């Protein structure tokens, strides 16, 4: 089964969960006065769940699509699952992990520290080795962005690690 059909299946499952919540559990907490309304908070979600399941089934059992039909898609540079093996998956995954780490360390390490590390490690994952170029660029960029956001836009960003504040 192709990837797009797996996604359709996942989508139908999601619709079932969503629909179950809309049809069976959501209305329990509805106060009686609102029950006299013609529209409940669950009305629209119910319609969506039904429509979603129908469309999902259509995609799941629908005919195979031909890629070349779409001129925009046929152009070079679109994502193509058949070329997955040629793609460099490892650095991409490493960057995803790095982004998650950035999200986790942003508060504890402070903006300047975690941003400098993020920019440095990101470049190193992609193959940059010249640390004497990398460290100044990353540090300077982190500081100037912090200055722009905090001083010019006036949005607070904690610059230093938590224990120093």
């Amino acid at each position, binding site marked *: 089964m192709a*990837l797009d059909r797996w996604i359709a299946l996942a989508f139908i499952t999601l619709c079932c969960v969503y629909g179950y919540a809309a049809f069976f559990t959501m209305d329990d907490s509805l106060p009686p006065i609102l029950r006299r309304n013609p529209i409940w908070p669950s009305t629209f979600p119910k319609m969506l769940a039904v429509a979603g399941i129908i469309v999902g089934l259509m995609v799941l059992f629908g005919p195979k699509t031909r890629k070349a039909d779409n001129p*925009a898609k046929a152009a*070079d*540079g679109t994502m193509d699952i058949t070329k997955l093996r040629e793609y460099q998956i490892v650095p991409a995954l490493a960057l995803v992990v790095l982004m998650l780490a950035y999200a986790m360390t942003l508060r504890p390490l402070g903006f300047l520290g975690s941003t400098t590390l993020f920019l440095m490690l990101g470049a190193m994952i992609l193959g940059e080795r010249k640390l004497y170029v990398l460290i100044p660029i990353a540090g300077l960029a982190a500081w100037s962005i912090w200055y722009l956001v905090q001083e010019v*836009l006036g*949005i607070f960003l904690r610059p230093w690690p938590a224990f120093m504040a």
Partner: protein
Amino acid sequence: MIEGLLLGLAAAVTPFNLMMVVMGCVIGTLIGMLPGLGPMSIIAIMIPIAISIGDPASALILLSGVYYGAIFGGSTSSILLNAPGVAGTVATSFDGYPMARKGMAGKALTIAAIASFAGGTIGTILLMIFAPALSSVALLFHSAEYFALMVVGLSAIAAFAGTGQVGKALMMTILGLMMGTVGEGALSNMPRFTFGIMELQSGFSFITLAMAMFALPEALFLVMNPARAATDAGGKITNLRISRDEARTIAPVIGRQSIQGFFIGVLPGAGATIASFLGYAVERNLAKGKEQEEFGHGSIKGLAAPESANNAACSGSFVPLLTLGIPGSGTTAILLGALLALSVTPGPRLMIDEPDVFWAVIISMYIGNLVLLMLNLPLIPYIAKILTIPRQYLIPFILFFTLMGSYIGQNNPTELLILVGFGVIATILRFADYPLAPLLIGFILGTMMEDNFARAMQLYRGFDFIIERPMTLALLVLAAILVVLPSYRARRARLRAAGVADGD
């Protein structure tokens, strides 16, 4: 209209707003040139900055400047590198790249700039004529019609998604609508589908979603496919002049394609991509003999056609946004989200309630086009240097700006986890060839759609509004036709291909 224009002039021509136009155009061109970053990603990244400006007119001026600049930057990389940053400029590379290979890169860029300028300007004039007329009609609409209109808009977006894509686009639209229902509901303040998670109480942030759907997958794809970021634009760009004969050749092409592009842009879901491909195809068919053979080998007509069409379509896509409050493309959906964040509700009442915003945007489109022409043309050889930034520096910065954009809006690290999670899902969806713009449009329209639906239901005590308001019924039927027709035609084409007789 003259009164409005003066009002817009007064609002747009302030030193600050002029600076915003120039800044938007330059930033848009710079980033739009990078392969893989389309206008949607750029606008999504710029939104937090625009919102923190605070003034809706200035914010929208900045963002539309970015939009125009991004389209222009996209054509530059199409011409110089054969690496279109945007689907809307793919057709530009058909003739633009061959011209650059022949050493006429400067001339190609000039033609692209002039065609874009003319397309954008003509498109804006048409927008100025049609938007007020359409919004006076739209004032007659009730919530029932609005609901139906949004259904039509969403169906049209799915219907124009391309052969075999209709089901997928519909699926993404419904997913977007479903994501829009997460959080506190429209009618009662009951939290829905939050699964007890505090962070979901106020729903998903649209900036986070926009970043996750467009900017992140593109950046990850740049990592996965190094060939995409290939940079060989080191060559010199000289001879920017075009001759009088050439100008005479492309003038009618630009005129025709600006008008055609505008009207295609007005249709929800069609937008710049279809406009540019169609413009290219129409001009190739119109051209005679030798000129027709030149198409694809560096024809100036083939370059001017998609360029003027895609810029005119950009102006056209503002029509449904400004008059109905319904975005027809991913980009205008992002703009709508930005406007809502600035507590401006686009729609027919925009012209009455906040005419300065409406007209300032239109005036700033003229200024933006002018700025692009005057500023970018002489600077292009220098701006193109950005294409030589090594990717190991470029990509971490793109990722960082994406993260920052969603962080400074919310100041909440959980938002970043949501962003990365959705970004990975969006990348998988892109691999499976699912269109993502419908998801975002559905997400943004979801709340508005439910509001209008609820109002209509309450007024008519149930589903009667569908039957009692003929206009609503007609619109809903139109939506059904839009969805069913492409799949019916695809089915017929398939049966014919399989050798089955075509019914009787």
